[in-house]
């Protein structure tokens, strides 16, 4: 606090302005820069308190149901890819570093560095979401869905490819395309301001797909290593999936469709199994290498389904907060490109930084609670 007051105090107010008491960056109802800064900061801390309480409802639900069915949590947690979770944790931690650096850059009028740091934060957020998109789509493909939608068939056989990843990626693809168009416009008009805004946005859009690529590569590796342990018969299939991934082919959907024609029978079996499970009978095949818990009953809607409900709710609401953070960081990039921030006015960067650290912080709790149980 004292450091901030030192920064704020010695600088004289811009006397060139006509309303010398109120420069453009100082809202009319505040007396001075310090009051404005303190108000913004207190407001943000209070908002963070509400955010913590907002998540606390779900943490309570987690504690209640884990206490009641610890074996379900252990069993289900093994389907979460720890490698991807760890990478995302690292990405978010690094983004907190760049965010904190951005605050310093704003205080020191390092406008270029500020845009760069905010861009780096935005890019990390995009990588996080890209990896998350792979995790979600992979789980959805094998039926690890929340609550009554849970239809997992845990024998390592994939049902028909449902294209969840392509579906999730549609909106980011459109956004990236728009960013690319904006970047072309910026470079065509040679507007420095637009270039500074469009550059980081385009990079962030590409980072998302970088995250998707990374996620798919690691997810396929994970599957391959699991496949070696157990069913030789499915190994070929895994290799095939891995092949798709490594080529990054966009004909993925079509190719796997043909690959699965031979397995249509399996798919129909799966549907039958699902309908049995609807009736309450836990008649679902569990691969021995997946079976780490003595209680085989966990693989049913009322047990595993509840874990995945909590998983999707917690990580989903967290992901929405990441998206919200990306929107405000983009707003900051626009302001930073206009060179609006200086040692007396950096509150917005500081406050968005606080928010970003909280989002990071919540993930630091989510990662061990969901991924690292076993």
């Amino acid at each position, binding site marked *: 606090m004292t450091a901030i007051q030192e920064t704020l105090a010695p600088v004289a107010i811009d006397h060139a302005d006509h309303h010398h008491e109120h420069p453009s960056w100082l809202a009319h109802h505040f007396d001075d820069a310090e009051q404005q800064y303190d108000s913004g900061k207190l407001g943000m801390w209070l908002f963070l308190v509400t955010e913590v309480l907002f998540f606390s409802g779900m943490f309570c639900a987690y504690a*209640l149901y884990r206490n009641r069915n610890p074996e379900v949590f252990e069993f289900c947690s093994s389907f979460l890819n720890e490698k991807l979770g760890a990478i995302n944790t690292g990405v978010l931690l690094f983004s907190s570093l760049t965010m904190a650096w951005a605050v310093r850059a704003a205080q020191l009028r390092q406008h270029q560095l500020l845009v760069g740091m905010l861009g780096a934060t935005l890019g990390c957020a995009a990588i996080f979401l890209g990896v998350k998109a792979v995790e979600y789509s992979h789980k959805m493909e094998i039926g690890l869905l929340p609550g009554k939608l849970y239809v997992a068939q845990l024998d390592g056989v994939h049902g028909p490819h449902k294209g969840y990843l392509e579906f999730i990626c549609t909106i980011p693809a459109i956004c990236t395309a728009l960013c690319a168009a904006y970047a072309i416009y910026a470079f065509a008009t040679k507007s420095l301001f637009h270039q500074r805004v469009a550059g980081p946005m385009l990079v962030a859009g590409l980072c998302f797909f970088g995250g998707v690529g990374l996620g798919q590569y690691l997810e396929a590796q994970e599957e391959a290593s699991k496949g070696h342990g157990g069913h030789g018969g499915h190994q070929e299939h895994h290799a095939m999936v891995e092949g798709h991934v490594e080529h990054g082919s966009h004909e993925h959907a079509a190719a796997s469709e043909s690959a699965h024609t031979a397995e249509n029978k399996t798919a129909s079996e799966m549907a039958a199994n699902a309908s049995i499970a609807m009736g309450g009978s836990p008649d679902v095949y569990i691969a021995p290498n997946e079976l780490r818990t003595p209680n085989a009953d966990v693989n049913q809607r009322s047990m595993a389904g509840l874990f995945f409900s909590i998983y999707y*709710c917690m990580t989903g609401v967290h992901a929405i907060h990441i998206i919200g953070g990306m929107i405000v960081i983009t707003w900051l990039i626009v302001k930073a490109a206009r060179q609006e921030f200086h040692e007396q006015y950096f509150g917005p960067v500081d406050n968005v930084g606080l928010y970003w650290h909280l989002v990071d912080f919540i993930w630091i709790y989510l990662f061990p609670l969901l991924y690292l149980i076993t």
Partner: protein
Amino acid sequence: MSVLDRPIATPGYSEADSYPSHHFLNHSKGFLSWALTLDHKRIGLMYLVGVMASFALGGTFALMIRIHLWNFKDGWLSNQTYNQVFTLHGAIMVFLFIIPSIPAALGNFLLPVMLGTKDVAFPRLNLGSFYLWVTGLILFLTALSVTGLDTGWTFYTPYSIETQQGGAVLAATFGVFVLGFSSIFTGLNFIVTINTMRPPGMSWFRMPLFLWALYATSIIQVLATPVLGITVLLLSAERLLGIGIFDPKLNGDPVTFQHFFWFYSHPAVYIMILPAMGIISELMSVHCHKGIFGYRMIAYSSIAIALFGFLVWGHHMFTSGMADVTTIVFSALTFTVSIPSAIKVFNWLGTMYQGTVSLNTPMLYALAFIFLFTIGGLTGLPLGALSTDMHFHDTYFVVAHFHYVMMGGTLVAFLGGVFHWWPKMTGRMFNDKLGIASAIIVFVGFNLTFLPQFVLGSRGMPRRYATYLPEFQPLHQLSTIGSITLGSGLLLALIVLLMSLVNGKKAPRNPWGGATLEWMCSSPPPHDNFSSAPTVGDPYDFSTIEYDARVGGYVKRT
């Protein structure tokens, strides 16, 4: 106390000062100057119109319920419609009227003026809160018109998951989510404003007690409402996707929903009553022309109520299935809340003692509040005690209890506050005689409506039933007559207020003789509230406030 001795910023009251030609109402013109305004006073007035309209809607539903219950069977509504009507009555009154009524409408208008600042800390967020409120209203109206919500305002699972009115449940829960954020942002704005924007001289203990009450309310809004937000979000996910967290068929737990819901909704009771208590503190002191008795105790008791309020939610669930020890702890904690409430009532009575009481409209509403709130508070004790609650749970006794607190308390205080600050907000005096008549009719009608319900409840009449046993009919009919009386009293109050806009005489700066800062600026206040930082004195020092016949109001002797 050199600050006290200094003359106030704009001394010398002249005719021109009292009736300003330029004020916030005519500062700018046109629809957009209101729709996009960042002025807290205009936002407060828009809220005032909005909450009054919601109250009229909720009140219409209430009258429909009472008229339906005139006969013990074959009422004019079908059972299904009856369920929808009492659900919408509750949901609209709680979420659209009571919670925003005092903080968002009166609080928005008064907080910066009473504090001596130009605006709240985040004016844009303030306007955003208002539009979130409007969005919530639209969602509720959707729920109303599309199918009709019939779950009760509490949205208890499993009923809210299984009811056929899925679309209505989704619209209403999303409405509650949005209204929750409106409430959070208002509270956040108030806390920041009070913490960082007090002018020089305005120390914590020179703040008017209404601001202490708003501060305590805001703490609850910020801490409790997010939990409701996530609860209704999970409930929507339950309906949309069947995530099973509250569904026993999927190994979920419906009692968890009740815990989550009441963790918000019990503190929300204090969101509703605390600002009302703040208004009463102001009204008592100003209209008795005597300093408030026990200022610090009232201020601290507001904070104490806000904090205790978080620890007692389990008393709504004594019959829902909790461990015995838990119920005993919740019951014991419930009794602790009565202590700060009683401190306040004691202090208000102490304020009246040897005061010069002006029996005008706001004061009569304040007196009605003390009677009704005391009855409401005392009947809460048998509901907080385990053995008696087993008998009273889900009966008309509960209905009567919370109507005495919520309506007899909050609504009556809200009306008192509206009458008290009406000259300040609009610059017009209302007809005091008709105002007094409205206060008396409301008081009589209210007791006639809800006293019989205590009797009904203790004899076993369950709440939310569309039909009842024939022996309850006389008491039900008494209650219905009372509700119509109450409705006409409220209608009269509205007419008095609206008439004042047409033919009321212009209001002086300080018509009642208040010593807080809002009476130091003109009626209505100018756009910026204060041209220069006002001088802050003791808000309850009436020794320098004198009546001046020339301006028809009170002035501060300099």
